[in-house]
């Protein structure tokens, strides 16, 4: 028998391990989601995305990630669940009080010169931060001149944000933060406590518009004096970070301000040369005017 006539048994040179199988499952799941709902997670940082998908898997009591694929394709309510898991985040009012103090001292003082102020809070999640912002603006006598757009890609988060009802057990922590942030009144002036919950006063909401906006695919919608986007870019890869920062640059007026999360920076981005640094540690930047 010559070697050429003998049928060789099929030998797999590489048998995929569990990790490689999971990587394929995730790729297919993300394709299904992008196809069905136009949410593109392909430029998310993979490590935390993988964790969140696995968290969603545990909660949904399915056996493996592949079983999530028919669910997202045929059950929109399952996708809502998935999206919720993707957006779960640690947030609090006046998180990093010093940031709010700097915002007040270095940015609000400049915004006072405008008769009408547009502010975009991108990725507002459940709203704790946008109400913190509104409180500071009110104390500076600016809120009535402001139009704040608070946007998120998760409609369920937006509903919570719009209601502005938070667990009362958090209030002492928020009060402490408020004081560190340079609060001028009493934090208790801004909410009503009832049955273990604290409801944010309606007058703070009057100048806030909550709206759906997906940073990955949606465009500019107004010219802004200030854009706040904290701890959103940490989940994106370099490409997506640059795209979103470019969107912010386009959305800002000349000399408009940008506030990022305390571990996010323009330093290694393509937008570095389009902004001045106003407060390095607090990540406050100002768009350079070429006029």
């Amino acid at each position: 028998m010559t070697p050429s006539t003998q049928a060789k048994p099929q030998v797999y040179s590489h048998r995929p391990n569990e990790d490689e199988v999971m990587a394929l499952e995730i790729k297919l799941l993300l394709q299904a989601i992008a196809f069905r709902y136009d949410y593109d997670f392909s430029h998310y940082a993979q490590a935390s995305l993988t964790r969140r998908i696995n968290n969603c898997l545990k909660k949904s009591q399915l056996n493996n990630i592949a079983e999530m694929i028919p669910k997202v394709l045929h059950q929109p309510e399952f996708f809502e669940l998935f999206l919720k898991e993707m957006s779960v985040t640690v947030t609090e009012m006046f998180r990093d009080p010093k940031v709010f103090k700097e915002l007040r001292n270095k940015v609000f003082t400049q915004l006072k010169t405008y008769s009408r102020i547009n502010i975009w809070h991108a990725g507002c999640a459940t709203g704790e931060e946008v109400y913190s912002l509104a409180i500071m603006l009110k104390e500076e006598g600016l809120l009535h001149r402001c139009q704040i757009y608070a946007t998120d890609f998760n409609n369920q988060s937006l509903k919570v944000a719009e209601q502005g009802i938070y667990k009362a057990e958090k209030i002492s922590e928020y009060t402490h933060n408020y004081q560190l942030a340079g609060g001028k009144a009493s934090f208790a002036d801004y909410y009503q406590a009832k049955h273990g919950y604290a409801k944010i006063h309606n007058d703070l909401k009057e100048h806030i518009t909550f709206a759906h906006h997906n940073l990955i695919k949606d465009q500019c919608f107004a010219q802004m004096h200030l854009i706040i986007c904290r701890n959103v870019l940490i989940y994106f890869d370099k490409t997506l970070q640059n795209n979103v920062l470019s969107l912010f640059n386009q959305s800002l007026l000349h000399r408009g301000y940008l506030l990022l999360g305390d571990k996010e920076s323009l330093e290694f981005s393509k937008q570095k040369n389009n902004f001045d640094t106003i407060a390095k540690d607090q990540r406050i930047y100002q768009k350079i005017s070429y006029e």
Partner: protein
Amino acid sequence: MMPVKSSSPYQALVIGVSAGGLNALHNILPKLPKSFPLAIIVLQHRGEVVFDGTSHNDFLISYFQKDCAMSVTEATIGAEIKPGNIYIAPAKYHLLIEKTKVFSLSLEPPVNFALPSIDVLFDSASACYKNQLIGLILTGASSDGSTGLKTIKGRAGLTLVQEPKTAEVDFMPKSAISLHTVDHILPLDDIAEFLCQLIQGDKE
């Protein structure tokens, strides 16, 4: 003549530590030579304490920089992880390692009541480095890190735990030992020497 093993099979060492960590880390890190060929990523549980305008993170970094031959920096988002460096996990964020060997951060809720969580770091580190990773659990009053260490073992990495008797708080080492058969249980004073021998190929 026997061939000399010149390069370590390991690329990175992740260390998880909680209560009592400052002394334990100070017993180990300054003893490692400047030429130590692994990237070391340290996760010390703590809240963000700010005094004199300096965050606790800066304090930890300057504290170890002073006494270590290896370079000590904060693990920053998007930074490429290079051998010969000690990276300290920042407070208030989970630290993860991407498969491209860069750091990423997340504000997922606390895991095992911890933010940052050792399990989160170890899990992502082992997905990246697989059998080229060493995991080490030191003193602490938490069970965080036990599952992560087991995951490292599951991907054929090397697992080390501080001998509980030598730990300021023995809960965390004991918890790690109870969850899987760790490769080596070492007294605190021996850990640095063990690591040095390991990378020279004297230990398996």
